[in-house]
């Protein structure tokens, strides 16, 4: 089988989209290390894959939000995220465990204290999103989650950026009205 190697720049480009082959490459190349880490840190491997998947999502988010610009190797950074998540997991079980890595280096802020309540609420509200038009959903996701600029969204949707701004606010106001009463 041909062994493909990517440069850091290629990886960053592929992560941002994200490209399936790049995600697969990162996964395949780091999975043994993640399993070993899980065994060392957590004492078991039953959550290794879940944690690794979440770490890949965090990596994509941080690249999109320019929190990781490739100053270190992508794999090194990815493994740091995995380690961070594993120690966070451990902290949930053992309150006295100190996190042996610097959170600021990773730029992954702590989970909010009411996270479980919040997620329950968001799960309940998911269907509200479907009451928005497809275009509204896409626009809001591009803007908020994918951190795309107004110009990028305008190009994608074939609108002017000023119209996109107005439309974004309209969509948000509509969604705000849909979730009113749940705050």
């Amino acid at each position, binding site marked *: 089988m041909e062994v493909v190697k990517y440069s850091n720049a290629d990886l960053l480009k592929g992560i941002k989209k994200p490209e399936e082959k790049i995600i697969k490459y990162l996964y395949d190349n780091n999975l043994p290390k993640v399993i070993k880490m899980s065994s060392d840190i957590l004492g078991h491997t039953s959550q290794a894959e879940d944690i690794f998947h979440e770490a890949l999502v965090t990596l994509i988010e941080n690249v999109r939000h320019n929190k990781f610009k490739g100053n270190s190797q992508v794999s090194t950074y990815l493994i740091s995220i995995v380690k961070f998540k594993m120690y966070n997991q451990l902290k949930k079980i053992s309150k006295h465990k100190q996190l042996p890595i610097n959170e600021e280096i990773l730029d992954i802020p702590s989970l909010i204290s009411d996270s479980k309540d919040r997620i329950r609420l*968001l799960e309940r509200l998911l269907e509200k999103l479907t009451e928005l038009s497809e275009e509204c959903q896409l626009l809001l996701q591009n803007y908020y*989650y994918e951190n795309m600029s107004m110009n990028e969204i305008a190009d994608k949707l074939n609108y002017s950026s000023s119209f996109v701004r107005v439309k974004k606010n309209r969509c948000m106001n509509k969604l705000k009205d849909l979730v009113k009463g749940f705050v």
Partner: protein
Amino acid sequence: MNNNKYNEEKIYDYLDGKLTDKENDAFELEMKQDNKLAQKVEELMLARDLVNYKGRKKLLNTVKEATGKTGSSTISINNTSSRTIAASKTPWLRNFSIAASFLILISATYFLFPRDSNIDTGQMLADFHSTNYSYAEDYLNRHSTSGFLDDNPNNLPKGSKEEIFLISDALKGFKLNKWQFTKEKLVNYNTSFPKGTYNDIALYYLANSYFNLGQYMLAIEHYNILLNSKFENNQIRQAAEYELGLSWLSIEINKTKEIMESIAKNNSHLHQEQAQLILERI
């Protein structure tokens, strides 16, 4: 105060973190004094969190698909410019999804790797694998003259009572061929006592339980972890190595060959003879 003085752009700029520190402080002060404005901002934040939550959920599925895994999404949204949300699946569901993922992997590897159709791997496993219970007792007897499986708490070896009862339960289950029960107890043991006294023996029997359950990829994963660890018991290491070779039998036979060849060359290996017989068959 009336929120009319704030145009919508200002509220969105606050929401998107685009205000200067001074503007931000002024806006927050205004929110403290204006409940209607604060309420509106809270609602917009919830709307934005909802968009991010959906986005993350979708991305997690994309990642799972790209890595060849499917299943329900576990979401934990980190607090980037937005809020942070975390959720966890119930343990049984998580274990189930991992097991399912590995089943998919096993199915995939079944078709990916070249196989010799003349080899009846099921028969080979039946011929060459016999579950060995003695290691646990040999190993654990060294920790206590009374033996590990002693029910009398006063005669128990080192480790906390909870720790000992849990591992003891697991090993009793193993002796009764209750693989699923043993697996659950051992996963529980390793989770509850990540730095416990018996993690190494627990790992070996966990791998062995996966093997007996026919979950060969999980067995391989756990045998590999054990063999890469500093665990010193040579008897168990050699058993793990041999069983690792057997685990590959129905997945990638070349791996089995490689491992059995190494064992067959080792005159001090407890499973040398069995390895030689296996090599004759494959």
